[in-house]
């Protein structure tokens, strides 16, 4: 028994070493991006130190306050949040239907949803562009360059993924719970709201987190389907790639700014996930 205690201690130490190494590897590229954002253009090529004592604020100030990037951040927030809300609600409903009911061809529908995500993006941009700017159009109103347009189009990759993930999770919730609730007279919506959602909450949280991040970071759809008004921060980033010297400093600065909301979101949701994880109870 003593031996095993020592082994356990060693294992702990080993575990921490692994985590610390992983942390360093994970953080290094982001740290380097921060260093780049803190350096002026002249410094970039001459200074390769792994630390930095001065900060070249202009990289942050110019794009954020003189440019239009502040607005882009707001656009991104709207689009990502709107899309996440829509996706999570629809996916819970769809996953519940596919998990609990014997729908004709349910397996096939289930597989079909995921094929939506498989399409190589390039060629699919043109039909979407035409759809948004010409087909779905009433007078001057069109989906092109609107937030709602992006919110809808992001369903193409977020919805299948959310349905797949949530179905796996809902499958794991015993049906006996639904049946019990149904006997008590709960409606379908009631069951989803009172049984499924609370039990699948950590899973839903992770799904929402990932969906939000995917939407926040999306580039191709955003650049194809927006122009000025609904432009998102990721599409704004390519503006720094110019003929007269890619403006790495400002680009890194904006990249860091674009990373902050996602980070905040991540931290908030993480707390929720940890609280819901029943695995904390498993001890060695």
């Amino acid at each position, binding site marked *: 028994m003593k031996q095993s205690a020592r082994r356990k201690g060693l294992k702990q130490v080993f575990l921490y070493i692994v985590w610390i190494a992983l942390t360093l590897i994970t953080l290094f590229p982001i740290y380097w991006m921060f260093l780049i954002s803190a350096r002026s253009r002249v410094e970039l090529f001459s200074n390769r130190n792994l630390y930095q004592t001065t900060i070249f604020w202009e990289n942050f100030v110019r794009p954020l306050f003189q440019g239009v990037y502040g607005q882009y951040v707001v656009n991104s927030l709207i689009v990502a949040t709107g899309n996440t809300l829509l996706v999570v609600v629809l996916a819970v409903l769809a996953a519940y239907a596919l998990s609990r009911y014997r729908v004709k061809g349910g397996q096939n529908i289930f597989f079909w949803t995921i*094929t939506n995500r*498989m399409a190589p993006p390039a060629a699919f941009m043109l039909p979407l562009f035409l759809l948004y700017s010409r087909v779905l159009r009433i007078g001057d109103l069109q989906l092109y360059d609107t937030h709602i347009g992006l919110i809808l189009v992001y369903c193409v990759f977020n919805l299948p993924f959310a349905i797949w993930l949530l179905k796996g999770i809902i499958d794991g919730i015993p049906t006996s719970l639904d049946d019990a609730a149904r006997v008590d007279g709960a409606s379908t919506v009631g069951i989803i709201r009172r049984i499924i959602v609370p039990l699948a909450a950590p899973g839903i949280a992770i799904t929402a987190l990932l969906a939000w991040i995917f939407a926040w970071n999306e580039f191709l759809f955003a650049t194809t389907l927006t122009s000025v008004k609904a432009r998102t921060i990721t599409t704004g980033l390519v503006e720094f790639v110019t003929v007269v010297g890619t403006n790495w400093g400002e680009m890194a600065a904006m990249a860091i700014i674009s990373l902050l909301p996602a980070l905040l979101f991540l931290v908030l949701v993480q707390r929720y996930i940890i609280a819901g994880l029943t695995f904390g109870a498993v001890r060695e």
Partner: protein
Amino acid sequence: MKSSKTAWGLLAPTLIILGLVGLLPFIYVLYVGFHDWMIFAKVSGLVWAGVDNYRELVFDEDFLAALGRGLRFTIWTVSIQMVLGLLLAHLLMKKFKGRGFFRAIHALPLTVAPLVVGATWRLLTIPGLGPLPFYLNKIGIDYNIGWSAQQAFFTTVLMHIWHWTPFVTLTFLAGLSALPKEPFEGAMVDGANQWQIFRYIFLPMLKPVILIALFLRIMDALRIVDEVWMLTGGGPGTATRYVGIHIWRVVFPMTNYGYGSAMSVLLLYFIIVVCWLLLTVITQAKREAGT
């Protein structure tokens, strides 16, 4: 059949939206794929071409090579990501001090946009600007992803792993969170060791989620564009010109919509078949094991 009606009601909004933004464009791309459409041709616009585009495609060495490269990239990245993700999820399941901290750090790369990931890694690896070539050079390793095809390939692999392993881990954690804990406790009582728990309880129970993560990673890796585009632009030579990038070049800079559409359809076909085979093999295996 009242319940079935409810189920359709639950599914309806999803099907409508996916039909609108997923199915409609697909039909259009399929249609364009049977046409010649080069914007800067003498005769511009759609010209019926039958299966000519596909006939050309099966002999197109560049496309097939790009497809092969994409596959190689996918196999490398996805297998490593799955193993790493599984291990890390398993580790993160245990309670230890700082677990929350490590989990947050581990998920950090996910929050970076693919485009920015590419840019960041470019900043890391560009000779003259990045620290990687600079410090590797000091210990005698000549590292230049603009020059060595091998290095460029593995740099893209590494970047992809860096970026997407957290996704796999998080997906597994999501799956884990909904699992009942009784089997684990039961096994613990029976004196099963770590490996046995992992092998006989953890893995089988996690199978559906593993499958999802595997699918998503395979399809995303096969059609990858932005990250690699930003990092290497497909170079040096054609070393990292994966199939997604190849299609991208044909559709946008080359403005050959017809041929590009045919390529997209073929790639989509390919991905669907791969995923469907995987799904079938796995579900069949499960069924046979069950009986």
